[in-house]
C-alpha cells in the first residue's frame, strides 16, 4: 500500500487516541464514566447509536453481499423506524427516567435480583464472545490482504480502542463515534463518486446491467418463513429484532441513557429511524456498483489472497486451467456487457442482455468451481464475499482514498467494539461487582474497577479474535444460544411495563421463552432466525402474564 494511504491510517489512529484522552476530562465519577453525566446532546447520542450498529462487517461484508446478492438484505431494516417509535413511547422513558446504569438494573427495581442477574449474565456471555467476532472479522480480512499475522491486525484495532475506552468511558466513546461516523459516510460517498466516474458506461446503463441480474430487487413479498430476507420477515421479525437490540441490549441502551433528557434520548433513536435505511442502501449500492465495475475490469478469480495462494500451491494445474477459462469468458462477458449497455432499440437490447446474462452465468459457474477448489484445499468455508471490497479498495481506488476507506473500516470496527467494551464493563461492575461483591465503596474505587474491567474485556476480545478460527464452533454455539434469548429478554422488558406482572412471571417466562425458541430452532430448523425474536417475546409475554396472575399480581 502507498505510504500516503498508510499516513492517513496512522493519522486517524493517532487522532482517535489523542482525542479520546482529551475527552476523558471530568470523568472522575462512575456516573460520568458510564453515563457521561447524562449531558450528551441528542445528535451525539444519535450518531453514536448509528456508529455502534455499523461495524466493520457492515463496511466489508455488506457491500460484498451487495455485489454478489444485491440489495434485498435491506429488508431486514424495514421494521427499524417502527421499532424506534415504539421504543420512544415505551422503554426509553421508563429506562431513562428510572436513573439506572444498565437495562438489567431496572429489572431488579421492577421484578427481582434473579431476573436481573440472569439477563445480565446472558448479556455478558453473548456480548463477550460477539465482541471478539466483531474484532476478528476485519482482523482476518486485513491480515489476509496485507499478509501480516492475525495478531497484528487484531492489535491494530484492539489496542487504540481499549486505550480510549478505558481512559475516557462513554463520553470519549460517544464523541469518537461522531467523528468515526462522519469518516465512514465520507469514505462511502467518495467510493460511489469514484465508481461512477471510472465506470466505462453511463450510470443508467450500469443500473440496467445490475437490475437485469436481480441485484436491484429490494422487495420480496412472498410470505415464506424459511426465507431470511422478505418484506414480511423485515417488517415483523425485523421490528422485534430492532426492539430487542435497541431496547434491551446494554451496548445500545447505554448510549441513550447518557442523553441529557428523555426527549433527547427519543430524538437520538429517531435519527436512526430516518437515516438507517438510506445509509444501508448506500452501503449495498457500493457493492452493486463494484459488481458492475468488475464487468469491465478483470477481477481475480478468488478474492481471498490466502486461499488463492493455498490453491496455487496444492492444485496449481487445476487452478491455472480455470484461470485461463475464466480470462477467455471474461472477455466475452465484457463484450456482451458493453453491447447490452450500448444497445439502441428494444429488440437489440433484449438480445444483447440475453447474451450478457448467459456469459455472466458462465463466469459464475467457473467461480463456483474455484471456490469449491479453495474449500477442498483449505478445509474451510471460502467467505470470498468478504474479500471483494478490500481487494477493490486496495487495487482500484486512487491513492489517498484507499487509506481513507481503510481508516473508515477501522473506525467502524472501533466504534462498535468501544460500545461493547463500555457496556460489558458497566454490566460487570454495576450488575455483579457492586450488586453482589462490594456495595459500599466510593466512586474512586468503582472507577478503578471499571477501568480494570474494560481492560479485561478488551484483552478477552483480542484473545477470542486471535483464536476465532480455532474457536469457530464454540463461537457459533454461543451466537446460537444468544439468538435464543434476544426476543425473550424483550418480552421481559415489555412484561415490566404491565402493572400486574411480577418477578416469578418474568423469571420463569424468560426461561420458557428461551426454551420455546430453542424448540423452534431445532424442531423446525428451516424457519428464518428473524422469526425467533417474535416467538421468544410473545412466549414470555403470555407465560409471564399467566404466571403473574396465578401468583397474585405485582410484587414490586
Amino acid at each position, binding site marked *: 500500500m502507498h505510504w500516503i494511504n498508510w499516513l492517513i491510517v496512522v493519522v486517524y489512529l493517532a487522532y482517535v487516541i489523542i482525542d479520546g484522552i482529551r475527552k476523558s476530562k471530568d470523568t472522575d465519577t462512575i456516573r460520568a464514566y458510564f453515563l457521561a453525566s447524562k449531558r450528551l446532546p441528542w445528535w451525539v447520542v444519535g450518531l453514536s447509536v448509528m456508529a455502534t450498529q455499523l461495524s466493520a462487517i457492515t463496511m466489508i461484508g455488506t457491500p460484498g453481499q451487495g455485489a454478489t446478492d444485491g440489495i434485498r438484505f435491506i429488508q431486514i431494516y424495514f421494521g427499524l423506524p417502527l421499532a*424506534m417509535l415504539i421504543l420512544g413511547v415505551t422503554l426509553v422513558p421508563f429506562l431513562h427516567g428510572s436513573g439506572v446504569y444498565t437495562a438489567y438494573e431496572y429489572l431488579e427495581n421492577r421484578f427481582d435480583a434473579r431476573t436481573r442477574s440472569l439477563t445480565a449474565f446472558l448479556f455478558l456471555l453473548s456480548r463477550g464472545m460477539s465482541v471478539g467476532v466483531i474484532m476478528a472479522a476485519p482482523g482476518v480480512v486485513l491480515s489476509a490482504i496485507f499478509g501480516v499475522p492475525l495478531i497484528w491486525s487484531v492489535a491494530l484495532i484492539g489496542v487504540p480502542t481499549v486505550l480510549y475506552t478505558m481512559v475516557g468511558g462513554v463520553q470519549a466513546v460517544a464523541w469518537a463515534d461522531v467523528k468515526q461516523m462522519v469518516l465512514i459516510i465520507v469514505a462511502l460517498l467518495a467510493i460511489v463518486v469514484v465508481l461512477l466516474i471510472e465506470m466505462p458506461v453511463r450510470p443508467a446503463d450500469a443500473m440496467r446491467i445490475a437490475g437485469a*441480474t*436481480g441485484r436491484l430487487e429490494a422487495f420480496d413479498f412472498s410470505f415464506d418463513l424459511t426465507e431470511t430476507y422478505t418484506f414480511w420477515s423485515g417488517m415483523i421479525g425485523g421490528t422485534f429484532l430492532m426492539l430487542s437490540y435497541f431496547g434491551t441490549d446494554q451496548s445500545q441502551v447505554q448510549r441513550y441513557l447518557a442523553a441529557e433528557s428523555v426527549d433527547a434520548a427519543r430524538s437520538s433513536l429517531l435519527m436512526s429511524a430516518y437515516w438507517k435505511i438510506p445509509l444501508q442502501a448506500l452501503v449495498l449500492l457500493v457493492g452493486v456498483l463494484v459488481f458492475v465495475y468488475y464487468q469491465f475490469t478483470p477481477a481475480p478469480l478468488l478474492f481471498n489472497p490466502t486461499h488463492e495462494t493455498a490453491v496455487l500451491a496444492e492444485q496449481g494445474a487445476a487452478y491455472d486451467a480455470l484461470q485461463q477459462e475464466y480470462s477467455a469468458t471474461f472477455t466475452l462477458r465484457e463484450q456482451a456487457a458493453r453491447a447490452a449497455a450500448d444497445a439502441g432499440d428494444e429488440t437489440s437490447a433484449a438480445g444483447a442482455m440475453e447474451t450478457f446474462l448467459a456469459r455472466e452465468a458462465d463466469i459464475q459457474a467457473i467461480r463456483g468451481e474455484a471456490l469449491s477448489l479453495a474449500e477442498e484445499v483449505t478445509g474451510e468455508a471460502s467467505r470470498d464475499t468478504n474479500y471483494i471490497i478490500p481487494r477493490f479498495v486496495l487495487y482500484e481506488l486512487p491513492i489517498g482514498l484507499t487509506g481513507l476507506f481503510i481508516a473508515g473500516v477501522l473506525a467502524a470496527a472501533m466504534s462498535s467494539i468501544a460500545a461493547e467494551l463500555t457496556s460489558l464493563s458497566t454490566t460487570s461492575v454495576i450488575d455483579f461487582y457492586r450488586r453482589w461483591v462490594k456495595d459500599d465503596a466510593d466512586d474512586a474505587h468503582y472507577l478503578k474497577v471499571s477501568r480494570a474491567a474494560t481492560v479485561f474485556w478488551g484483552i478477552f476480545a483480542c484473545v477470542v479474535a486471535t483464536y476465532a478460527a480455532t474457536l469457530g464452533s464454540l463461537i457459533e454455539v454461543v451466537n446460537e444460544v444468544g439468538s435464543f434469548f434476544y426476543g425473550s429478554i424483550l418480552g421481559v422488558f415489555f412484561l415490566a411495563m404491565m402493572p400486574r406482572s411480577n418477578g416469578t412471571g418474568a423469571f420463569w417466562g424468560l426461561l420458557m421463552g428461551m426454551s420455546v425458541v430453542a424448540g423452534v430452532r431445532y424442531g423446525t430448523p428451516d424457519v428464518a432466525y428473524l422469526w425467533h425474536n417474535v416467538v421468544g417475546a410473545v412466549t414470555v409475554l403470555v407465560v409471564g402474564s399467566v404466571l403473574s396472575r396465578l401468583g397474585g399480581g405485582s410484587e414490586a
Partner: protein
Amino acid sequence: MPDEDPVVSEPRSTFRASLIRVFAVQIIALALLAVLQFSYPVF
C-alpha cells in the same frame, strides 16, 4: 420540584409530528427502492 413524569413530558402533538415525519421518510425510502426495482427489472 418533583420529577416530571417522563412519559407525558413530550406533548402528544410533538410525538404525532415525529410519527408522521418518520413514516413519511420511510415511505419515501421504500418508494425510491421500488422505483429502482421496477425501473431496472430482472431480465
